[in-house]
């Protein structure tokens, strides 16, 4: 889930930082640029790992979190909506398990706003609720990068407050699935 990504960049050190050790200034600038930011088609950047070369072109590996397809991860349920179950890994929140990838049969409880697995046994259907805060094991089945760089003057006027905020698209989202034995809430599979 975590990888080292090798990058090359030119870093500008502002003059008032000249008194500091060069590596420290460069490290700080790189972290400011990349930490907690999504790099298109790579993943979410955590932090600088090391600077391998300083020349006219600087080369440095950075820690990044990218998700290999089919990887198993454990996260926490952030909430449910008709779109599916929203999962969070503390440092990354944009994970969705769509309804078709839940353990079937599944239904959305409108009153409680929660997805439910209607687990069938010989005694009948047993409702298993996917509550917020529960730990959930899922498989990564897809990831998508959206280019969110600014395209020009925005049509939404910030001063006229409308009821709905302009929808901000997440630059990096993961799609998960729990439709396999062993996936879903950890509590479903651990023998207590």
């Amino acid at each position: 889930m975590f990888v080292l990504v090798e990058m090359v960049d030119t870093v500008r050190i502002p003059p008032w930082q000249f008194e500091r050790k060069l590596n420290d200034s460069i490290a700080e600038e790189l972290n400011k640029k990349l930490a907690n930011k999504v790099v298109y088609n790579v993943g979410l950047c955590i932090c600088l790992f090391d600077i391998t070369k300083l020349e006219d072109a600087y080369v440095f590996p950075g820690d990044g979190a990218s998700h290999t397809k089919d990887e198993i991860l454990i996260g926490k349920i952030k909430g449910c909506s008709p779109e599916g179950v929203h999962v969070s890994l503390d440092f990354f929140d944009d994970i969705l398990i769509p309804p078709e990838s839940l353990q079937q049969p599944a239904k959305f409880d409108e009153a409680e706003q929660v997805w439910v697995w209607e687990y069938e046994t010989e005694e009948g259907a047993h409702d298993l609720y996917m509550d917020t805060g529960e730990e959930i094991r899922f498989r990564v089945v897809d990831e998508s990068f959206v280019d969110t760089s600014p395209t020009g003057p925005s049509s939404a006027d910030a001063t006229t407050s409308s009821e709905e905020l302009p929808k901000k698209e997440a630059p990096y989202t993961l799609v998960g699935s729990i439709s396999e034995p062993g996936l879903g809430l950890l509590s479903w599979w651990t023998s207590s």
Partner: protein
Amino acid sequence: MEVKDASSALLSNYELLTDLKEQRKESGKNKHSSGQQNLNTITYETLKYISKTPCRHQSPEIVREFLTAMKSHKLTKAEKLQLLNHRPVTAVEIQLMVEESEERLTEEQIEALLHTVTSILPAGPEAEQKKNANSDGTMDEEDPA
């Protein structure tokens, strides 16, 4: 900025935990950490996440021992990494993490794999306590009052 190699090395949760803890120590000494809000946020949240995973009980020696023991099981690097990061304890977890496990591993091999994982990678003192408490519980029931 240019990405030269989007996947130059896989990092285990343990390696990242060590690296982030080191960075946090360094930044504590460094007074110029103003304006590093993003870095602080991401390192804090990432540390929070991986500190809950089995890697918090690992050490370089344990990781080395694990990888040596894994050689005989013929798994890919990514699969070994998943086992290292998650410490599966059931056969169904192994089946999730090893691709086409039904074709590649017999039941005995899965058991052997589970044994390697659970014996080398520590579960942590809480899990050990729970195990002891369970066995103590049954013994108490049998003992005369």
